[in-house]
């Protein structure tokens, strides 16, 4: 399958991949949801994952910080192998921030508390320092003035930006986004995408499941297309959009671009 060559990062000599999937397989009961995923990302890369519903995009992303367990193959994040070892999992989760479709902010905590929770309890940071850092990231997502409100008092777009700031507060080396804009109104989508573009420009390693093709064209280093649990095609954006190899990809693109 020549067209999945691009699923592996093009590494300079001496450079090593920050995320590496080797022959990863996963089943839900009998259902084979990830099939032989081979895939790697190098530091600073920005990957967009797309594909039809149910194709396993979320599942693959969630394997990276072991919200899901895989059953075969190996996943290495920053050189650490994913297995049942709790220390490893902890170490990786510190390094990987995640932003969910439905934000999943903690409604009983203020914005500031949402952001400082993990730094204080996981990174054992002094409270003051954690708050300063939190305010820094809130400013970066342009929402510092809301710090003392509760999530329920913010709009969806604002909430998602808080969720991004919360991910950043762990000062992760990698950020995962699982359809971060699909629960939002069109005008809020823009707010959030702007924030993400800014992050991308700062050189953060990002894996982003999204169907915002504009975003993909602007910032992605590679676009990965999945279907039925497989990586069908992976390529640089202009190649991917202008010259899709696979008929499945062509069909998919024709649908979402016309929409």
């Amino acid at each position: 399958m020549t067209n999945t060559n691009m699923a592996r990062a093009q590494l300079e000599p001496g450079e090593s991949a920050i995320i590496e999937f080797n022959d990863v397989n996963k089943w839900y009961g009998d259902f084979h949801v990830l099939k032989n995923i081979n895939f790697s990302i190098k530091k600073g890369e920005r990957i967009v994952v797309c594909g039809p519903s149910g194709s396993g995009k979320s599942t693959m992303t969630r394997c990276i910080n072991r919200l899901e367990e895989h059953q075969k193959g190996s996943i290495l994040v920053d050189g650490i192998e994913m297995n049942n070892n709790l220390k490893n999992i902890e170490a990786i989760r510190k390094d990987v921030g995640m932003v969910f479709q439905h934000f999943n902010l903690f409604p009983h905590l203020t914005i500031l508390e949402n952001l400082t929770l993990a730094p204080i309890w996981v990174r054992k940071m002094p409270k003051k320092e954690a708050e300063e850092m939190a305010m820094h990231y809130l400013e970066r997502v342009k929402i510092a003035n809301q710090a003392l409100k509760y999530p329920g008092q913010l709009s969806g777009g604002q909430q998602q930006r808080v969720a991004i700031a919360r991910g950043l507060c762990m000062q992760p080396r990698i950020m995962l986004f699982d359809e971060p804009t699909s629960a939002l109104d069109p005008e809020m989508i823009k707010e959030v995408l702007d924030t993400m573009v800014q992050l991308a420009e700062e050189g953060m390693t990002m894996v982003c499941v999204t169907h915002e093709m504009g975003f993909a064209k602007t910032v992605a280093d590679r676009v990965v297309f999945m279907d039925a649990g497989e990586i069908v095609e992976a390529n640089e954006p202009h190649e991917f959009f202008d010259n899709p190899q696979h008929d499945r990809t062509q069909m998919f693109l024709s649908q979402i671009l016309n929409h």
Partner: protein
Amino acid sequence: MAIEFKPSPSLPPPSTAVGPVAWVRQNLFSSPLNVFLTLFSIYIIYLLVPPIIEWGIINATWEGASKAECTAGGACWAFINVYFEQFMYGLYPSEETWRINLAVILIVLLIGMFAIKAINKLFLSLTILLVYPVVAYFLFAGGVFGLEVVETSRWGGLFLTVLLGVVGIAASFPLGALLALGRRSNMPVAKSVSLVFIETIRAVPLITILFMASVMIPLFLPEGLNFNKLLRVLIGITLFSSAYMAEVIRGGLQAIPKGQYEAADAMGLTYWQSMVLVILPQALKLVIPGIVNSFISLFKDTTLVYIVGMFDFLGRIQAANHDTNWLGTTVEGYAFAALVYWIFCFGMSRYSMALERKLDTGHKRN
């Protein structure tokens, strides 16, 4: 050219639609069946209400030293009057009852302090949950700071009823939370232990559990190791209500969206950190009305301790009914008990409904 549209003025409705006459017609006499029902209801009210008022208020006797002085033909409230202190405090020495009152005032003040913004809520909660019980215990039992020792066998009346209810709920809370977590856990042993405990307790009547607590616990302990009956009954009540509490809390846990668990995991929180910091605070808020309802049932159920020989509020009233001076005041005693229980339970149930409404709108899910 377009015609301008001006809405016609609204007219007042015809008298057949609004006003007291219409109201009576619609709500009381809208059909032959309703006419019958209305008349029937009026008849029932006529049968019940005037005699009760006559007996309970008009012909009642409020003061007196024995039943013989109740000659007006109505209720003999003098009985309640004379026995009031015993009904409230049991056989607690009357010169020491200030200690109970003080404890009540203290807790009211402490809870009232939640309204003050400047106070650290966590500190206050810890005071109420950890410090206050100790203070209250020594106030009640005595034996320190020159307070006279008061045997638990002298504790009784409404004091004991409230004590059993409050301690039962408060103590069953942590246990119930553990059981709920256990029942939702994916570890088969933890799950089945919690499940068996919860379902066994819920299958049997409280009275068998009280009976076990009052007579059987000592059989299971090594000889010589034994503790106070009140404590044993409290253990029984706590175990009982913790099973129900576990189910209430489980309901709350189930209502928390899966995303919250995932977000906590993704941040690298450990199981216990995510439970204590993220899940339980949300779940508990959701289950407060359920807890208040459990408290109401428990409060009513504490009357059963009477069957195992403790003189709670109802027990004291039953006992006083046998006072030779006051024979024949059974109905007054029961009426008084019913009124007190009713005020407590009804008040709390309204409170829980109000709370439910408040939390319903206040807790936006996302």
